[in-house]
């Protein structure tokens, strides 16, 4: 192909990005799923709850759900800080809050019409006035987030989405290490989370949602997520 041909080709197809192709493909898939659902007995919904959808959109919604949970938690932490919080802790936890909000909103926009609804959280087991309770929960959420992204990586089929998950998971790992060090300096990567080969944990979506479910009131249907 010579240069002028290449230029004209670019002009013709410029508005058709891969993202849009995927959008169309996804929309078509969604339609098929909806039609299939209609053909079944639609008076008895199987797996009632917010459907995370399938394929890459399913994984993005799964991440969106976790980021919603984390953001809601840190928003509450900062709105009424625990007793004895230091200036440095306030600064860092506020930053973490903003990172989680950024992640949440990013997924919301990336998913567009495919995005799940805002989830209702349940933080009744957390004592927000207690440093120990807040940091223990933060540690659990951050370690869980790291293991969730690590486990979801192999389920993603679009390399762009895999890279984006990678950009986020290392920030979650930085958070996890910071929170762990606040609880006990030097525990940033201790043997409770890092295995004998020096590897972090990874968890499957069902494993993660079983743990996160304690804090999420909205019922989630993850049955359409990819499993391999």
């Amino acid at each position, binding site marked *: 192909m010579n240069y002028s041909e290449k230029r004209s*080709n*670019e002009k*013709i*197809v410029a508005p*058709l990005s*891969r*993202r849009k*192709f995927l959008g*169309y*493909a996804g929309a078509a898939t969604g339609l098929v799923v909806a039609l299939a659902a209609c053909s079944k007995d639609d008076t008895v919904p199987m797996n009632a709850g917010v459907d995370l959808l399938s394929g890459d959109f399913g994984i993005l919604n799964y991440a969106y759900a976790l980021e919603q949970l984390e953001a809601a938690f840190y928003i509450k932490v900062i709105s009424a800080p625990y007793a004895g919080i230091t200036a440095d802790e306030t600064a*860092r936890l506020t*930053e973490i809050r*903003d*990172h989680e*909000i*950024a*992640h949440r*909103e*990013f997924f*919301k*926009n*990336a998913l567009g019409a495919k995005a799940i609804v805002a989830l209702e959280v349940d933080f009744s087991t957390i004592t927000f006035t207690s440093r120990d309770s807040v940091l223990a929960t933060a540690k659990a959420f951050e370690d869980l987030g*790291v293991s969730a*992204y*690590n486990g979801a*990586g*192999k389920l*993603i*089929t*679009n*390399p*762009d989405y*895999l*890279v*984006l998950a*990678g*950009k*986020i*998971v*290392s*920030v*979650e*790992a*930085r*958070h*996890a*290490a*910071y929170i762990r*060090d606040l609880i006990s*300096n*030097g525990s*940033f*990567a*201790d043997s409770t989370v*890092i295995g004998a*080969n*020096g*590897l*972090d944990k*990874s968890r499957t979506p069902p494993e993660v949602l079983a743990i996160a479910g304690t804090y999420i009131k909205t019922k989630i249907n993850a049955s359409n997520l990819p499993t391999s």
Partner: protein
Amino acid sequence: MNFYNIFGEIEKADPEVYDRLDTRRAAMKGFANLGGKLALAAVPIALGSMFKKAYAGSKSTSETVLQILNYALTLEYLEAEFYTTALSKGILLIPAGAATAAITTISNHETQHVSYLKTAIAPLGTAVAKPTFDFSGGSGSGTGPFLTVFTDYPLFLAVAQTLEDTGVRAYKGRAAELVKGGDLLTAVLNIHSVEARHASHIRQMRKASGVDVKPWITGIISGIPAGLVEPNYIGEDNTKQATIEIVNINSMAISTNAATEAFDEGLTKDQVLAIVTKFIKP
């Protein structure tokens, strides 16, 4: 039938398909162009010839994986020897107590990563030999800018931070090539997040000794004097992800700093090799 789904299907069978086709964009453009010019019935034939061209003389998937794992092994050799050398200096370099304990934890992980990667490489081919390192950053001259790295504790921590942050970026930069890489991809991701935990802690150690850095990367700020590590942090000031602007996204008060911190950026193979080469004796 949605012809664009063909790419997704082929990608399932061959994660490298886009590499073979120059780039995704080029593949899509090429295909869209074909579709526009040819009669519908001729499209599958044209598509076939496009892929035939792409696969001619290309490397096999296992060779690519082997190459990525050896790339990772080289970085882990570098980190492992860096920390074992530092620990061998004892309290002349690293204060006893928490600091020595933390560096020991990190050192053990890097050594474990070396062993693990060697094991993962064995069925695929030959593991690269450990290079001779020059931790002064002098490309083997021994007189690079980090000459005193094993006698000057603040400099040691600065180089440690740079190596950890760069390690995180290096793994991220190759992730796309391992898409749908199964358990191998999971293992690489499980190493990647450990490097990020290390980076976070080293940054906290530097913060405790008075350097103005956070556990996460703010813009291209490294807390290291100008002229030394700019290539390691280039691009970390990005605030757009997949064309979505993160600053004040959806009217949320997300500052530029927070937007850059919230996403770690990757480095390409060439960018990483240019950095690492300075630490290797040719």
